[in-house]
């Protein structure tokens, strides 16, 4: 029971400081769940994240469900996800009820521009560590560069994920057979 509430609060904390989508959330999840506690391994977070591209719904929610399930089964998944969405529900309801033109307030605009630069800097670190873990030989390097190129041309992420799974399986299977 205690851990269930802990999961709720950890994800509420992450949800409160995630600006601008799933990528910004990775460093925080890593810090809270892999570094401060050993709830999950860093690699697992990235794997959850990748699977989240394929399953329906918001990626942040998918990741919280996965982590919660790993720790405490279905109940853990529900508590983690509830924690993740709780700050949004409170903050958005508050803004919808009381503040009009929230995004036009000058100080909010400045703060958001600053946050965006901070997120931009944080993602640099994420890219470095994700690349170190994923790019381990020539084939994976090519796969990363091709993904980068087609993403910039606007390919849907779900399709790329399916293709990368497929190419991983085919390449490894064929290579295994050739070596035999």
């Amino acid at each position: 029971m205690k851990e269930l509430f802990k999961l709720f609060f950890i994800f509420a904390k992450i949800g409160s400081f995630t600006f601008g989508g799933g990528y910004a959330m990775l460093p925080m999840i890593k810090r809270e769940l892999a570094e401060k506690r050993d709830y999950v391994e860093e690699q697992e977070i990235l794997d959850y994240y990748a699977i989240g591209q394929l399953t329906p719904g918001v990626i942040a929610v998918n990741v919280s469900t996965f982590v919660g399930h790993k720790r405490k089964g279905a109940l853990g998944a529900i508590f983690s996800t509830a924690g993740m969405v709780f700050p949004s529900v409170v903050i958005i309801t508050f803004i919808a009820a009381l503040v009009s033109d929230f995004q036009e307030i000058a100080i909010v605009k400045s703060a958001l521009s600053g946050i965006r630069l901070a997120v931009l800097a944080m993602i640099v670190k994420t890219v470095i560590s994700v690349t170190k873990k994923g790019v381990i030989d020539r084939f994976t390097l090519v796969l990363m560069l091709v993904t980068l190129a087609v993403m910039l041309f606007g390919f849907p992420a779900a399709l790329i994920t399916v293709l990368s799974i497929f190419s991983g399986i085919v390449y490894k299977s064929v290579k295994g057979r050739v070596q035999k």
Partner: protein
Amino acid sequence: MTYLLLFAEFFKTGLFAIGGGLATVPFLFEIANKYPWFTKSQLTDMIAVAESTPGPIGVNMATYAGYSAGGVLGAVIATIGLVMPSVIVVLIVAKILEKFKDNKFVGFAFYGIRPAVAGMILAAWISLFQMCVINSSYTGLKDLFYLKELIIFLCLTLLCLKTKINPICYIILGAIIGIVFKL
């Protein structure tokens, strides 16, 4: 009745919007067409608010739309509707993965998926960098970058790589810098 409809519509959105928050937008447009809950121009405001408040964008959108349609209870119901399909599907996937995690082919699949994720995050970084630091109406190398933003970004990156600063403090620091330098 409105609440039931709200739940059903957002459940559908959560089930079919694959790959991140902004994938919910086309579904919300459909809802705006079908029901009197919110208009299309309100929807544009919603996107702006959802992007400028903490939390996953898809969830923020559902809460905002639910609130416009049915007050606080509407906000809660729409949000539950949105996340419920993901929770169910992810639980099923997690159970399957648990069972097959030592399977050779699952390992091969992750071998392919990991570098692809690296590429996707780098692509997201590039488009964010373009939005924040690059002057879209540049005439030459001299005004290609927003200098103030570029310098702040470089300092922040250095700080991030060289220290183990807590990401939350970091976000707050970003907000303060934004306000102080009037970005």
